[in-house]
């Protein structure tokens, strides 16, 4: 019989993860033992402190220069420079999202009650929403941290589930428009389960080919094995479907508008920022660390997916009449821009580091702008909930100039207008893509330039619908029974202020974040 050696676990390196998951478990115990009226008072500081503490632990590792260069936890996780940067971004984004979640009135009092029934009224009058939201968010955030840091496909699958399962639930907890929220939860769950199955089946196929699920192990097997093995091709395709679904790339984008619209807006903000950041990180790691030796096979496919995603996202956004659906399609288009960056991770270490830097920078600035935009959406309200329909936003610039101005600025940042952070994000990604096309030995040479042209055209189309909303807000008359502007709570004000500051600040001094992204990217993914 073979004995199992006791593994070594790098607790210091994994501390941010342990803090988040530990707080989530304490949150479950709070739900179990604390009286109802005390729960929120315990959850809020616990959640915020654990996220801030985890962020501090990430900072400590970076500032002390203790970024690990080998895989941790017996090769299951890789806490390298890019991982730490992504962790930092996710922790900041989830911290501000929790500030939004704290606001009263986003979550249903009793999710199990039939919408419109006496049960629901009774729960509603008893007051308070589901406080389970806090531990669920912490579990989801923990999954988001694990996902891009996974060093083997099984760990990545577990992370995917830990991230997704709480989000499926959270989507169904919106207080208003219950049926829409339940529909969102159901659709997300079914499609998400389907894509998880694809991911898992792809993992099994690749294991069949490589004899290992470890990402560097797969890459080594690719270097010495027959490359056009059907097992490998089927596995690669299925793994790709699972990952592309999570970032919402076309043709797997169908869930995004429905789920973003139906979910409670703070949760939409968390999904549109944190989940996208985590999923793009995981895509980078799988394709670069695991399938790097196969790049002449997957890059043409990703080329097509990226082009399609940018075009579909931009064009379908024009036809949307709901603000959250429009932002969802905008998120799809941005996923496409990010995939352009993924295409550029090719060739020399220098080239890889510069395109990685571009993507990390893009993720950070796009994430924070997104949270800000959704925070504004929570404030424009009708009697039945948030004023979703775009026609309700007409003339908002005259009734609430500050709010409309801030929202207009976020939209300009999404469009990538100079002097906003979005401009530098897009510029960095497109420049990296053009650079990679000129690398010697890149078979995709001219195609990269073509992709950038598609990207620029898609940005122009996207700019049209962003500007259309701004025109609607400032240059049309407000209707007499226009939506009410809720008095923002301290949390919401903080979220909008932070997002605005970062969007303006990084737009004026992009070096601030670019420098950090550069340091993180230089250490590259552990291979």
């Amino acid at each position: 019989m073979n004995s199992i050696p006791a593994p070594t676990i790098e607790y210091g390196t994994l501390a941010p993860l342990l803090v988040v998951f530990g707080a989530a478990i304490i949150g479950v115990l709070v739900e179990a033992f604390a009286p109802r009226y005390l729960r929120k008072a315990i959850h809020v500081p616990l959640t915020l402190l654990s996220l801030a503490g985890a962020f501090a632990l990430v900072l400590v590792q970076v500032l002390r220069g203790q970024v690990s260069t080998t895989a941790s936890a017996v090769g299951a996780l890789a806490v390298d420079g890019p991982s730490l940067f992504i962790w930092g971004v996710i922790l900041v984004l989830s911290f501000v999202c929790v500030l939004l979640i704290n606001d009263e009135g986003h979550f249903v009092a009793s999710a199990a009650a039939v919408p419109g029934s006496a049960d629901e009224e009774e729960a509603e009058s008893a007051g308070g929403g589901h406080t389970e939201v806090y531990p669920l968010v912490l579990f989801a955030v923990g999954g988001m941290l694990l996902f891009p840091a996974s060093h083997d496909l099984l760990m990545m699958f577990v992370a995917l589930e830990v991230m997704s399962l709480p989000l499926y639930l959270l989507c169904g907890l919106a207080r208003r428009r219950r049926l829409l929220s339940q529909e969102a939860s159901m659709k997300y769950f079914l499609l998400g389960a389907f894509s998880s199955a694809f991911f898992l089946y792809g993992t099994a196929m690749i294991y069949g080919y490589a004899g290992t699920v470890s990402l560097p192990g797969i890459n080594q097997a690719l270097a010495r094995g027959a490359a056009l093995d059907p097992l490998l091709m089927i596995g690669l395709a299925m793994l790709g479907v699972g990952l592309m679904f999570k970032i919402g790339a076309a043709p797997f984008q169908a869930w995004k508008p429905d789920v973003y619209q139906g979910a409670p807006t703070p949760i939409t903000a968390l999904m549109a920022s944190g989940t996208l950041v985590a999923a793009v990180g995981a895509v980078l790691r799988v394709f670069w660390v695991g399938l790097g030796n196969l790049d002449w096979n997957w890059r043409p496919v990703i080329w097509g997916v990226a082009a399609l995603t940018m075009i579909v996202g931009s064009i379908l956004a024009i036809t949307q009449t709901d603000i959250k659906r429009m932002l969802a399609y905008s998120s799809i288009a941005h996923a496409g821009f990010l995939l352009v960056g993924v295409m550029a991770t090719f060739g020399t270490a220098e080239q890889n580091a510069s395109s990685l830097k571009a993507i990390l920078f893009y993720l950070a600035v796009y994430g924070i702008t997104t949270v800000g935009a959704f925070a504004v959406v929570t404030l424009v309200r009708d009697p039945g909930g948030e004023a979703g329909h775009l026609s309700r936003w007409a003339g908002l610039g005259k009734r609430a100039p500050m709010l409309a101005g801030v929202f207009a600025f976020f939209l300009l940042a999404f469009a990538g207008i100079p002097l906003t952070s979005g401009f530098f994000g897009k510029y960095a990604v497109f420049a990296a893509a053009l650079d990679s096309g000129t690398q010697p030995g890149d078979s995709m040479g001219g195609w990269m330039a073509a992709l950038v042209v598609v990207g620029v055209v898609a940005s122009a189309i996207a700019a049209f619908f962003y500007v259309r909303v701004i025109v609607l807000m400032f240059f049309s008359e407000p209707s007499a029974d226009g939506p009410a502007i809720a008095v923002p709570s301290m949390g919401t004000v903080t979220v909008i202020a932070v997002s605005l500051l970062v969007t303006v600040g990084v737009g004026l001094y992009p070096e601030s974040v670019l420098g950090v992204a550069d340091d993180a990217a230089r250490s590259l993914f552990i291979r």
Partner: protein
Amino acid sequence: MDLYVPILVLAVLAGGFAIFSVAIAPFTGPKRWNRAKLDAYECGIEPTPQPVGGGRFPLKYMVTAMLFIVFDIEIIFLYPWAVSFAPELNDAGQAIAPGLGLFALVEMLLFIVTVLAAYAYVWRRKGLDWD
């Protein structure tokens, strides 16, 4: 290829028997309808009441089944742990491989505590009360 012939024959036999049994039953079986027979089958007991026109319905079977699965997996996980816990001895009683020791004890306790946290939540939220 010859190796597969018996398997093929067995598959044909099994499939044929299944189809034959289902097809013959309506013609040969006695039909004595009563209320219990027309009810939804639920482990041979009174079916869970369903609200007319949609609404809440009890999930007690689901909660019980989920708890069973969680603790079932925990036990399965404990087996290899218990086997590797102590140092491996040869016939003469000398250790030939170190056991997992204190590290594994602490890790397993942590694992059990996390599972118990979920259990405590179910218990406090009255998930264990049948009615």
